[in-house]
Structure formats: C-alpha cells, structure tokens
C-alpha cells in the first residue's frame, strides 16, 4: 500500500514536470516573441501548409477507412481476415521507413517516373518532389497509406457494437447500401468518428517524420510543417529556444481549439 501510494504521487509529479514544459525564456522579453510570430512569413507558411494537409488528408483518409470498414463488416464477405490484415499492415512500418519508400518511389529516377515513361505518359521524368503542389500531394498519399488501416480498425471495432440485425431489417425494408451507410452507420459510429477525427487532426498538426524525410520541407520551404519549423529553429539554425517555444505554444493552442471545436460539433449533431 505504502509503496504504491508513495510511488504514485511522486511519479505523477515527475510526469507533470516532464509534460508541462513552460515558455523557458532565459531573458524576459514579454510578448515580443508573440508579436514576431504574426509577422514571420515562415511561421505563417508552415501553419498554412499544415492546414492544407489537414483539410485534404484527414477527410479523405477517414472516409476511405469508413468505407473499407463497412465493406469488411459484411458477414458474408470472403477473405475478410486477409483483406483486413493487408490493409492494416502499413501500420507496422516506421514512419521513417514509409517516408523513405514513398520518397524513392516518387524521386526523379524513381519507380513511378520509370513506369510513366514506359507507358508513354511522360516524355521526360517529372520531378514530383520539387513541385510545390505535387510534393504536398505525395506527403498526403504517404500519410494516408500509413494511417488508413489504423483508423479502419477503430471503425471495425465500433461496427461490431452495432447489432447486425439493424442492417438486415433495413435491407428487408428496401434501404439501399448508401442509405444504410448514411442512416445507420454514420449516426451510430459518431463517437468513434469524433475520436478518430481528433486523433488524426492532432497527428497532422504535429506532422514531422514524413515531411522531414520525404522533402525536408522543400522545395523552398513549400512543404514545411510547424513541427519541423520548431525543430529547425532549435536545432538546425543557430538555436533560438525562446522563439521556438513561442511557436510551440502556437501549435498547442491550435490543437486545443480544433479539438474543442470538434467535440462541440459532435455534441450538437
């Protein structure tokens, strides 16, 4: 009893000290860092990029995961386990590994270019990762590849809690697959959908591994994310920890606002 009860507050204190990291400015400069934040073109660009990833990637991935889960929930479907395993498999790779694979596939002399040249679609290789738009698309594709199966698992678990007879009844009443999806699946899965949306949003706002390894923020900082900007500020350029901490808090505030908004929206519906 004593061990657990003593160990436990101590350990909690330790945990808090690790996680609540404060502003950490050595010199007190007041809000000048924050003023600087709104005039910093790189910061604004990085936030814009993250929002672009967010707006495109999260809905596409979650919708895909939902569709896959509802197909795989069909009791009559064959090879269900096999499909599920294959689609879930990318989750077992390190983010760095998946980033490397996609970087190689889409490099100038990479597989995709070679194939497209062979098929005669292109006359000369296209530098995917040097194009501001395509570089973003490839990052989105890589993230979607890595995380769709992960989200699908959540939906499958959620679908298992829905009584299968509801679907059978709906079918007898002549409901189409689409209206079954919108009238039964979506409302009943709402809590899970909110959960995955929050998790994905959180993950995308903190995006780092993929971008660092696929494009390293390039071309010309066109794919830079806020996390990578913090990393660059602290460890690549001459260290400016104070300002980096300011940017960090900006991410924190964004995550908090978006999570709060999503929970509110979820409650209302």
């Amino acid at each position, binding site marked *: 009893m004593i061990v657990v009860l003593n160990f436990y507050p101590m350990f909690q204190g330790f945990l808090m000290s690790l996680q609540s*990291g404060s502003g950490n400015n050595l010199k007190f400069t007041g809000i000048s860092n924050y003023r600087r934040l709104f005039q910093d073109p790189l910061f604004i660009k990085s936030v814009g990029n993250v929002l672009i990833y967010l707006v495109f990637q999260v809905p596409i991935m979650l919708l895909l995961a939902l569709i896959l889960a509802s197909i795989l929930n069909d009791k009559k479907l064959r090879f269900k386990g096999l499909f599920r395993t294959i689609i879930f*498999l990318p989750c*077992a790779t*390190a*983010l760095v590994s998946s980033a*490397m694979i996609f970087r190689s596939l889409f490099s100038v002399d990479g597989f995709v270019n070679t194939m497209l040249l062979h098929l005669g679609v292109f006359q000369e290789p296209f530098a995917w990762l040097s194009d501001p738009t395509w570089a973003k698309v490839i990052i989105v594709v890589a993230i979607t590849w890595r995380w769709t199966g992960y989200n699908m698992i959540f939906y499958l678990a959620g679908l298992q809690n829905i009584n299968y007879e509801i679907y059978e009844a709906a079918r007898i009443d002549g409901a189409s697959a689409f209206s079954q999806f919108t009238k039964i699946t979506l409302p009943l899965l709402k809590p899970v959908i909110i959960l995955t949306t929050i998790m994905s949003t*959180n993950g995308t706002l903190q995006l780092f591994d993929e971008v*660092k390894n696929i494009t390293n923020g390039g071309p010309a900082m066109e794919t830079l994310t806020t*996390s990578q900007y913090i990393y660059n500020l602290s460890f690549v350029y001459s260290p400016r*920890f104070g300002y980096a901490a300011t940017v960090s808090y900006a991410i924190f505030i964004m995550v908090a606002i978006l999570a709060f908004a999503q929970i509110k929206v979820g409650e209302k519906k």
Partner: protein
Amino acid sequence: MKYKINVMNNFFKYAFLIIVSLFSIFPFYWMIVSATNTSIDIVAGKLSVGMYLIENVKTLIKTVHLGNAFWNSLKNATIGTLASLVVCSMAGYGFQIYRDKGKDNLMNLLLLSMMVPFATTMVPLFRMFSTAHLLNTLTGFILPSVSTAFLIFFFRQNSKSFPIEVVHSARVDGLGEFGIFLKIYVPIMAPTFAAAAIVTFMNNWNSYLWPLIVMQSQQSQTMPLLISGLIAGYTTNYGILMLAVTVCTLPTVILFFTQQKRFVEGVLGAVK
C-alpha cells in the same frame, strides 16, 4: 433482377478491396524486391527478386554501422517497453484499485496532457536533458516516453474488469499490497500486459523525432536515424537504402503478423 444487383454489388466490393489491398501491399513488395537488386536495376523499374542481396548487405555494413544501430534500437525499445509497463501498470492499478475523487480528477488531467503536442514540450525537454547530461544515453531515450497517459489509461480501463474482492481477500490472507500487485494482478492481467507491450515496443522502435534530437552521436544512433542519414548524399543507392528500410521494418512486421490480435487490442486499448 435482385440477384443481378447483388452480383454487381459484390463485384464492386471485391474490386475495391483488391485495389486498396494492392495499394497497401505494393510499397512493401517494392521495398523487399529492391533490397535484392542493384540501384541501376531499381531505377530501370525491375520488379522481380534479384541476386544482389548479399552484395547490398556487404555495402550497407561497410557504409554504416548497421549492427550498432540495430542493437541500439532493440535495446532502447526493449528496455523502454519494460520500464513503461512497470510504471504505467502500477499507476493504472493504483488509479483503479485505490480509486477516489481526487485520483479521478488527476486522471482527467493526465488525459488532457495527451492533447499537448510533442512539439510543445520538445524544446524545454531537450534543455532539461542536456543540463542533466542525458543526451546520447539510454535514459535520455526512454525517459520522456516511460509514462504515457495513454498507457496508464489503458491499464486503468482494463483493471475495471479485475475483481476487487480478490484484493480484499488477499489482504485478509496477509499478502502485502505489493505482493498482491505482483502475484495476483500481474498473472491475471497477462493479456493486457502483452497488448500494451506490443504497442509500446512498436512505438519505441519507430520513434524518430525525439531520438533525432537526443541521440546525436554515431554511437547511440537508432535504426530510423540511420535510414534517414542514408539519403544525405547526392545520389541515392536505392538498393542499400531499401535494404536498410527492410531491416528496420522486418522486426515490427513479424511482430505484427504473429501478434496481430494483441496489437489490435493495444491500438484500440482505451476505447472500450
């Protein structure tokens, strides 16, 4: 007519599933095949297994400290996982078994900390660790991820199914609190421990940003860092890059295939 619609429906379902499956498996296939080919073959678009695997292994070992990085990853991930399990299972157990209002509030606070982005704490953490001379050390690697709110919550949720009467009767029988935890709780909760272990191990193995900051020396390099270092040069040798990626991916993929059920449990973890 109805039958026809069903057939069409099924056809589309399977076609969709097969296309998605191909998409998710192709990068793996390409990775493994490329590890056995020369960079020139890979660039030329070769998609069959080549004879160049051993050559690639030799080159890779010559250019980087593969063994060292693999060992570091294995060591860090294993010890980190064990430490996490000890700390978080005790905390989760404590939260559930000695439950009161204060602890419930504390748990909610902990859950809020899950929302704090790592980027926010990264810089202060780094400064703390460098003052404490923990850079490039095992402790430095595992400490920030030893206790995670997710894992504590996971253990707490699963402890709900643990019969509290057992604890009471063990106390009557004169078993100490720690003894109860060790001799009764741990064996009964073995599946929970296994699921937590798998997920934590994978997270530790794959972790990148934090090691990138604290494990700066060659000596303490981990697999993800090694891979990311391979592209630093001008031209990339895809053969050895993909070999390194394969080496880094194999342990987790094997874990995935052998322990898939537990992995799923671990991922879903706290959602119950």
